[in-house]
């Protein structure tokens, strides 16, 4: 456990030192790359609540990532074109303010997670995997065939949304926002993990029958975990859209769900910092391998297979050792 804490500190230090070095060396591309890693790590932290803490293998988290992205896209689209979002019964206008967008993204994806979770959690095991996948695809095809917000082409937002007191177009300042939100999410998940709810959730993963016997309904715990998980992933979707200043149905695609899951697995399922290390490793690999070969997905696939077959527990498990008395 102590080695894991040291490793976590090292990961955080890396996430502070690399962008600072890039800032000093005037390498804005590296800052953007690190921002991408931080935002995708946030998505992974969200998925890890369902996957790692709850044991719910969701292959549909792209749904929440996309909803967060479109929360940003739709609000900013209305603001930049001076079109009101709703006129009757009362006027709602679009907005370019990040905090408002985040709030909407969190609420919308939490609502979607409650609905999808309530239906999907009636099932378990493989059925759950396939149903979450299918719900993700349902939203994907809906966004493609719904022309109001760009359909298949997506929406471009010309200027990055604003945050009071900061210049979000400056890469290092936008990175600071993303990193702060990542830290806040990690803090929240750490609190959840050690709370009564988190302990009940862990027991429900390990022995649902016993949890039921002491009078707790696993399905309720799972629904709450799934909702929190969806909300965090939704927030990261809004940030990701702001990073690219572009949203498209690709955010909903099942490859996105797969990649978010890959971050969690590469890093280590159920480890607090697993998704953070995983996404950093993924982005670094993408960056290096893309320079080596056009067909870098083959290497990515091979690395992934290697991790699944030989390094259970992911990178954190490999470095810090497997957790004892777990599962």
């Amino acid at each position, binding site marked *: 456990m102590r080695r894991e804490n040291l490793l976590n500190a090292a990961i955080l230090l890396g996430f502070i030192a690399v962008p600072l070095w890039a800032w000093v060396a005037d390498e804005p591309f590296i800052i953007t790359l690190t921002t991408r890693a931080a935002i995708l790590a946030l998505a992974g932290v969200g998925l890890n609540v369902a*996957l790692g803490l709850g044991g719910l*293998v969701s*292959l549909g988290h792209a749904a929440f990532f996309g909803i967060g992205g479109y929360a940003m896209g739709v609000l900013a689209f209305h603001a930049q074109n001076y079109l009101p979002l709703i006129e009757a019964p009362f006027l709602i206008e679009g907005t370019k303010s990040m905090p408002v967008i985040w709030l909407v993204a969190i609420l919308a994806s939490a609502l979607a997670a409650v609905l999808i979770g309530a*239906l999907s959690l*009636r*099932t378990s*095991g*493989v*059925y759950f*995997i*396939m*149903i979450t*996948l*299918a*719900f993700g*695809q*349902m939203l994907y*095809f*809906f966004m*493609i*065939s*719904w*022309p109001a917000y760009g359909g298949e082409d997506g929406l471009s937002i010309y200027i990055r949304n604003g945050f009071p007191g900061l210049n979000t177009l400056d890469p290092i300042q936008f990175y600071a926002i993303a990193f702060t939100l990542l830290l806040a999410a990690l803090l929240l998940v750490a609190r959840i993990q050690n709370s009564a709810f988190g302990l009940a959730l862990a027991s429900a993963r390990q022995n649902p029958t016993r949890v039921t016997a002491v009078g707790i309904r696993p399905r309720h715990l799972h629904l709450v975990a799934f909702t929190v998980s969806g909300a965090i992933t939704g927030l990261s979707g809004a940030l990701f859209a702001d990073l690219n200043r572009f949203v498209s149905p690709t955010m909903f695609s*099942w490859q996105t769900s*797969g990649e978010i*899951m*890959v971050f969690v*697995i590469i890093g280590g*399922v159920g480890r607090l910092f697993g998704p953070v290390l995983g996404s950093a490793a993924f982005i670094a690999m993408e960056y290096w391998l893309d320079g080596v070969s056009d*067909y*870098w*997905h*083959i290497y*990515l*696939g*091979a690395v*992934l*297979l290697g*991790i*699944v*077959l030989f390094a*259970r527990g992911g990178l954190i498990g490999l470095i810090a050792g497997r957790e004892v008395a777990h599962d």
Partner: protein
Amino acid sequence: MTAILLIEQILNGLQFGVMLFLMAAGLTLIFGVMGVINLAHGSLFMIGAFAAAGTAAATGSYVLALMASLSAAAVAGVLVETLIIRRLYARDHLDQVLATFALILIFSEGTRFLFGSFPLYLDTPDLLSGPVTLPGGIQYPIYRLFIIAMGLSIAGGLFWFIARTRIGIQIRAGEVDREMIAALGINISRLYTAVFALGAALAGLAGALIGAIQSVEVGMGEPVLILAFVVIVIGGIGSIKGALIGALLVGLTDTLGRVLLPQAFGLIMDASSATTVGASLASMAIYVLMAGVLIFRPSGLFGGTT
């Protein structure tokens, strides 16, 4: 809406459903017998289509192309099973999802490396091209009728195979109790490889059949794979009968939804917004169907208690 158009669309729906059945049958067998969730099944579909397109381009023979698709997919299936999937039987579903996701990356990029990013085309053979006049004066492509006939006869053959042959009995026994049939002296790992190869060959055949209707390209397998998942979730995992009924339901719902929903909304709103709303909802129709089935039967129409 004329009756002729409706019948045409029903035939299209059947053709789509039959193709989904070929995919779903393999998935459901592999899951039912081995307990493995195989995301790479869509890659086997793609391999079948590419093998067929490559063979047809080289030899010009459609029959050879179909045989090439069957054998290429079966060989790929045997390789995947013996090298990778075999290590995953005892693991949880998460590991299986991840490993087969990795396989998709490898297969897709490998195919792109071998064949390039441009789509290939597979021509329908002369004998099967052109329309045929059905009773009632409906003009319908022979090739689509051929797919329907192929699919239904394979479904029939599969039912016979599972119900009547020795291997079929072993497969059913394997679904019920793996340890027991191993204890009775049946070589379980050979049975697993055979089931995997059978499922892969069916997926490859589906790819070859569809390859003549649409273009053969990298990534063609995954949309079909996800629909096949919907099929087996609706039908109940492990049930061939469920896969057939689910596939036809999904095929018909999707095809008819795309035609009927815009028209239904046309009755209550103007034409252009009816098309928009109808098309958006039609693209979601099968998922709504799936959610509806699961609310009433969480383990599918013909699923056991899992």
